[in-house]
């Protein structure tokens, strides 16, 4: 016990200092160095990289250095605006104090997003983010001007999570474009974004976005805290962040929603959730995520509520199909023949007559083959796309069955499983079914349907224990909230869904005042007068 206690204590001590905003800002101040030294120091920092440009220039009666990374800035506008505006010299004006510098900036770069930087490390960071730095002789502060350019992919339709009816724009790799996509959808002053720099080597920009006055402050604070705790060298994709801030690592289920669709993220923000945008990826994270989020998509709300509800139920059903069909096949064929009606059973047995494998081997063989085909389909060059589908269709569909390696019914099982798996709107969630399927198949081959049930109990228990940012993963089903059932298995008409999810404990639980169902204007004869 005492060992356990001391272990617990040790774990507590290891708390990381909370790091918010900017990477550590320190280093030598500018005032102790003259221009020559600064130049040498910058060159020493960046080494012999070819895209560093340090120009000497004289402006406002002072020697100055213009420093930038040529690959990170818009050289055209540098020449057009900056150089023109600072090269002209004013008569009798000498830059000597900080106030002079400020007034110069106001005059020449007003509105251009200038910043005064003090330390050497700040300069380096500014350069890396695509700013140009102007260092004046004998000045304590340097001027940093934002001039970043990145070749952006233009906004296109998302390649995942496509819809039939709904907006066709998707997030892109540039974080500023993504923020603007959200801003354009929610024209509300309460939409807040906060910046984090994560990754000690990549210094990736990460924004969190939330609706002030709606989102639960505690959850926002928790997101800030977890992002601040991240101590890795590199962040390239939202998946990296997702893994680092999840409540639990050992689970096949995703604990954060990811979306390429601005409309989906915007509607989630208005529900009181928090978006995490990462520079360099079109996938935006939404936390906290609960299981039902992975079954509802934006399009549910764009079409008739009956159709929306129907499609949602189809999604739940197909998740179950994708999860358990192969194991049911194995279980029934191995242990429970009696569950099938006799004619069907005879048909299956007759088909399997020539098959040399037991059902479980047959299923695993085919499932693995399918997974290989699927992976090949994703990875291979587009140009040879046809090949895999032809080979796959021939191998799986026909040749294997004709050769007597597998039965025809097996082909149907694999096909229905695969298609049902593709229904899942979020790829990361479908992955859970893909993995757990194999566990179910193996247990089912040992314990039959009873084994399937046991594994399902394990899965449900596991799901009940999961939390996403403190929110139980299975809410609002367990813990049961009756009000929220309007948006779980069914999608109720929009006018009836007035409440934000209660499990999020939002600051403003009501979306809009009570309105009845829309009704036609009264007919002429109906009016009493």
């Amino acid at each position, binding site marked *: *016990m005492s060992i356990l206690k001391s272990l617990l204590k040790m774990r507590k001590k290891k708390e990381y200092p909370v790091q918010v905003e900017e990477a550590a800002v320190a280093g030598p101040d500018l005032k102790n160095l003259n221009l020559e030294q600064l130049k040498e120091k910058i060159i020493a920092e960046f080494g012999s990289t070819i895209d560093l440009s340090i120009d000497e220039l004289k402006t406002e009666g002072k020697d100055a250095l213009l420093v930038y990374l040529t690959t990170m800035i818009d050289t055209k506008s540098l020449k057009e605006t900056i150089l023109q505006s600072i090269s002209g010299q004013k008569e009798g004006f000498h830059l000597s104090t900080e106030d002079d510098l400020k007034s110069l900036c106001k005059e020449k770069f007003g509105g251009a997003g200038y910043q005064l930087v003090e330390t050497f490390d700040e300069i380096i960071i500014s350069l890396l983010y695509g700013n140009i730095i102007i260092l004046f002789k004998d000045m304590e502060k340097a001027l940093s001007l934002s001039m970043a350019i990145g070749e952006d992919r233009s906004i296109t339709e998302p390649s995942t999570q496509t819809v039939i009816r709904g907006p066709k724009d998707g997030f892109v790799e540039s974080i500023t474009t993504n923020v603007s996509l959200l801003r354009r959808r929610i024209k509300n002053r309460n939409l807040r974004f906060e910046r984090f720099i994560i990754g000690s080597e990549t210094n990736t920009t990460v924004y969190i976005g939330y609706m002030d006055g709606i989102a639960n402050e505690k959850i926002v604070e928790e997101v800030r805290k977890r992002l601040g705790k991240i101590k890795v060298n590199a962040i390239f994709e939202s998946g990296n962040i997702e893994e680092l801030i999840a409540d639990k690592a050992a689970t096949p289920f995703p604990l954060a929603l990811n979306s390429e669709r601005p409309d989906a993220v915007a509607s989630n923000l208005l529900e009181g959730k928090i978006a995490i945008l990462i520079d360099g990826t079109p996938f935006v994270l939404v936390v906290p995520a609960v299981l039902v989020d992975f079954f509802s998509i934006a399009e549910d709300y764009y079409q008739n509520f009956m159709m929306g509800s129907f499609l949602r139920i189809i999604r739940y059903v197909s998740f179950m199909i994708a999860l358990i069909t192969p194991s049911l096949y194995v279980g029934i064929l191995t*242990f*429970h023949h*009696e*569950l099938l*009606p*006799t004619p069907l059973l005879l048909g299956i047995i007759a088909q399997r007559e020539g098959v040399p494998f037991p059902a479980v081997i047959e299923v695993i063989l085919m499932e693995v083959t399918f997974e290989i085909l699927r992976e090949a389909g994703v990875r291979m060059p587009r140009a040879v796309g046809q090949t895999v589908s032809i080979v796959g269709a021939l191998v799986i569909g026909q040749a294997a069955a004709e050769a007597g390696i597998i039965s025809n019914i097996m082909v149907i099982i694999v096909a229905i499983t695969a298609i049902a798996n593709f229904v899942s709107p979020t790829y990361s969630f479908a992955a859970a079914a893909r993995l757990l399927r194999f566990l179910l198949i193996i247990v089912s081959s040992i*314990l*039959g*349907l*009873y*084994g399937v*049930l*046991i594994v399902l*109990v*394990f899965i*449900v*228990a*596991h799901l*009940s*224990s999961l939390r996403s940012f403190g929110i*139980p993963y*299975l809410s609002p*089903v*367990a*813990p*049961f909230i009756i009000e929220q059932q309007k948006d779980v298995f069914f999608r109720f008409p929009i006018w009836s869904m007035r409440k934000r999810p209660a499990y999020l404990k939002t600051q403003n639980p009501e979306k809009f005042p009570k309105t009845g169902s829309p009704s036609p204007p009264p007919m002429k004869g109906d009016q009493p007068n």
Partner: protein
Amino acid sequence: MLKENISLSQLLTLLINFLLGSAIVVGVGGDAKKDAWIAIAVSIMFGFGIMLFYYFLISRVPGKNLYELMEMGFKRPIAIIFSSIYVVYFLYLASRVVRDFGELIASAILPSTPIEVISLTICLAMAYILYLGLEVLGRTSEIFTPYLFGFLFLLTILLFASGNADLNEIKPVLGDGLKPVLKALFPTLIVFPFGELIAFSLILPVVTNFKYCLRVSLLGVAIAGALLLFAMFLMIVTLGADALLRSNFPMLSSAREVSIGNFIERIDALVVFIMMLGILVKGSVFMFAGLKGLEYTFRLPYRYFSLPVAMLVSAYSVLISVNFGDHWQEGLEMVPYFLHLPMQFGLPSLLLIAVLWRKRKKKAKPGTKGMKF
């Protein structure tokens, strides 16, 4: 130790599943033959009384469970002795529940699989759930309960649709007089399943919104009682009294009668699902009650004990009796008199008196001081 809470709806589903649990597997009130449903109807009244009694006991000191109350009533050393007895009692009951289920699976679903494997796997599931905590148990039962109702509903429809249910089977009502009903009632039906609610004396104190606890508990007893009554009714009209009495698992036997258009047949799997859920919850609640006792005794979080204790339960579920007949007889003739009655009513009554006495003494003290003033 971690503070856990379960909601009222979770309490409700736990109660329903707990009461249905093994009662629906083995069938209760068989002594009353055709009038078993009357015996059950009467026993629901007793169920209310029992629930009220346990609630009264627990609500004397808010937030304290059975073991902590014992410490209050008898001081710690005696409380440890009593709680150890309760731990053994609860774990024994958990083993019985697991054995019931093991026999069911071994005889109906997986005839050539040894019962040890069934016991082990279901105990592993229970251990996992309890390791994750009471909240997870509550949520799991919350998730599965709608399916329980759904399957029961489906089974009813199928039985009536296939024409196996014959309402004339219940006639004559009270054909043998009241005697068989009373025989079924005392004590078997009262101690099983309603008396076993003693395990909830460990769960009631952690329910949020304790105010409505009594109402919800009584509602739970009512719903579970009604379902039990309905299930028994269904079994009687499907099987008839004789087959009911002869069958080890009457619910399963009645499900086997279903046959519609030579296509929907042998829906045993559905019934086993209903039963498995009940068993899982009931076994887990008993195990939880036992684990709480260990937590009280050793002052260690109960999660630490969940796996080892589950393994013990699994082993004992196989060892407690040589065969199903033995197990059955033990359950009907020994357990109610020598275990259930003292543990469900004797000790708690003693405890209630002790607690009330202590409380009065405590109250009296400041009173006398006030007199001096």
